[in-house]
């Protein structure tokens, strides 16, 4: 396998929530100790339900949110230790694509101006800027005529193309794509997924793809990390993870995808209840109140990472000395 581009160790992000003026704040453990290695040129997906901390993780990796603890090593360099100035220089290599392409494009600026912004921030000389802008807009499948229009004149799919163009202006090495196709219609969604794949081939970029849609994840990823309440509960190669999921949560997630074949009867695991609040996570294994395979040990002890044929899982079912 290729070189690691990003190594994450013990990443935590806790948000303080004030109860009252004189009471100590309580903490929402949005991300609670994540270890992750991303290899050059791959697509690693992070899946999970809303509130599991997948977007927070994505933002912490790029220091759009300051992590509470842990390190994020990009090509050996710990990003969390960099000064603001150093980090800013680093941003030409690390970019993000957001979910809602309308909310992330300034409605008062033309597309040309929006795309110019990252170039100005990285002090690219003026003569070169126009050339890069015109080249990039065509790479993402729009035309030069689009450059002097405003965001409201575009459809959702086109806006997402602009969002992607902005992210690749500086030809980054790593892109965090945070739900890039969730707001789009099915027929447009596949256009954008294909575009992302083409760009990856063309520029050799690495993707961290954050999504709640397992169908999309299965299509685009090389490896998949499943998150539940701020922790990665399973991580493995896409083929294995979808073929033989180990964690009961992953199994339930995969079995809950509605299939477009009316005759494909599959065993469905329907999880009871909702995702617990990360402000007050359950003891032991965080998934135990919803788990159908819950044992006594799960209620008290936090499961450790276990590796089964290269697939990482955190579940007591796979403990060496199983207590029943």
């Amino acid at each position: 396998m290729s070189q690691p581009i990003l190594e994450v160790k013990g990443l935590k992000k806790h948000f303080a929530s004030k109860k009252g003026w004189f009471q100590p704040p309580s903490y929402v453990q949005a991300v609670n100790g994540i270890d992750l290695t991303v290899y050059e040129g791959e697509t690693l997906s992070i899946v999970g339900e809303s509130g599991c901390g997948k977007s927070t993780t994505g933002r912490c990796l790029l220091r759009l949110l300051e992590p509470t603890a842990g390190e994020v090593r990009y090509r050996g360099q710990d990003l969390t230790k960099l000064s603001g100035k150093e980090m800013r220089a680093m941003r030409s290599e690390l970019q993000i694509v957001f979910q809602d392409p309308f909310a992330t494009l300034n409605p008062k600026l033309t597309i040309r101006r929006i795309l110019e912004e990252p170039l100005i921030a990285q002090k690219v000389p003026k003569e070169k800027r126009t050339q890069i802008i015109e080249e990039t807009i065509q790479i993402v499948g729009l035309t030069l005529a689009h450059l002097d229009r405003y965001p409201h004149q575009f459809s959702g799919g086109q806006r997402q193309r602009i969002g992607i163009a902005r992210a690749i202006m500086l030809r980054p090495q790593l892109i965090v794509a945070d739900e890039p196709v969730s707001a789009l219609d099915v027929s447009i969604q596949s256009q954008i997924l294909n575009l992302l794949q083409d760009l990856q081939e063309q520029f050799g970029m690495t993707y961290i793809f954050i999504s709640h849609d397992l169908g999309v994840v299965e299509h685009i990823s090389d490896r998949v990390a499943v998150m539940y309440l701020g922790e990665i509960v399973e991580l493995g190669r896409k083929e294995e993870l979808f073929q033989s999921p180990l964690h009961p949560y992953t199994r339930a997630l995969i079995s809950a995808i509605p299939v477009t074949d009316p005759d494909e009867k599959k065993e469905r695991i329907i999880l009871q209840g909702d995702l617990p609040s990360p402000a007050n996570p359950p003891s032991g294994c965080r998934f135990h109140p919803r788990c159908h395979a819950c044992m006594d040990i799960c209620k008290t002890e936090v499961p450790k990472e276990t590796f089964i044929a290269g697939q990482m899982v955190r579940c007591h079912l796979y403990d060496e000395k199983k207590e029943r």
Partner: protein
Amino acid sequence: MNGRPSVLEVNGLTTQFSNRQNRAVTVVDGVDFTVKKGETLGIVGESGCGKSVTSLSIMRLLGKNGAVSGSVRFEGQETLHLSEAEMRKLRGNRMAMIFQEPMTSLNPVLTIGRQIGEVLHLHTSLGPEARKQRVIELLTLVGIPRAKDIYAEYPHRLSGGMRQRVMIAMAMACQPQLLIADEPTTALDVTIQAQMLGLIREMRDNTGMSVMLITHDLGVVAEMCDRVLVMYAGQVIESADVRTLLRAPKHPYTMGLIRSVPHRAKGVKRLYAIPGNVPSPGEWPQGCRFAPRCSEAMPICQQQSPNLLKMADGSECRCWLHAPDAGTEGSERT
């Protein structure tokens, strides 16, 4: 399914809105369908195809600038000409609706119990005590734990899945004949979606009501529906029973939609993508509205709008490819 009586018959339903220039913009254009007793009809399409406006037109929930014409017969009664008072007697009683975003459809300053109780207050003669009993019964029925406590809670205290359960309880309060569910699971996570779909199915099977399910998700359709209408740019472009539609789609748009579902494209490097964008109402092209994005487009497609044609297997399709005489008219096709 054919022998059953129909609950809802919609004929030539057309909905227009007037825009700022006071020009009428057609959003739903001559839609015909029926919903039989106990059946689940799916309406599929992308944003802007008119699927939600169709359901709002049937419920007569559009504002003053939405002009609805055509015919909507609910249990044999023409509802488009009913007065607002008469319509109010039907809504929430014989026909009910659940919406996509449960938070925006619940009143944040009223308790859950009060909101569901309101339906019973309007449509039944139950007294306050009996109403409370019935509301708690309904909450239990939709699988809400601690129904007595939830009765006194406000919507913001509940999770998305719970709120949608409350919406379903409210819709089920008077045991409607027809439930219109407009993207009921789009805002929910997959695991919660599976719970909700199971619940709607259970309610349908237990009460024998009909369901009109509006969705963009073909997976949800496969799981829930007996028959499906596919809408594009305000028109029905294909209708068939669910198996035929997903196995042997006829319209190029339906085929494209099914082929672009990533989960189905196992092992395929590139997904199939329909080129171009969904046209907005008011910008629909001449002739067949899908023609500019269609890979099979013939000269006739740009000029003349195709009719919804009956197929041999009982399905319907609005496409020149399936017109018996199109072979001669569109002779350029090889």
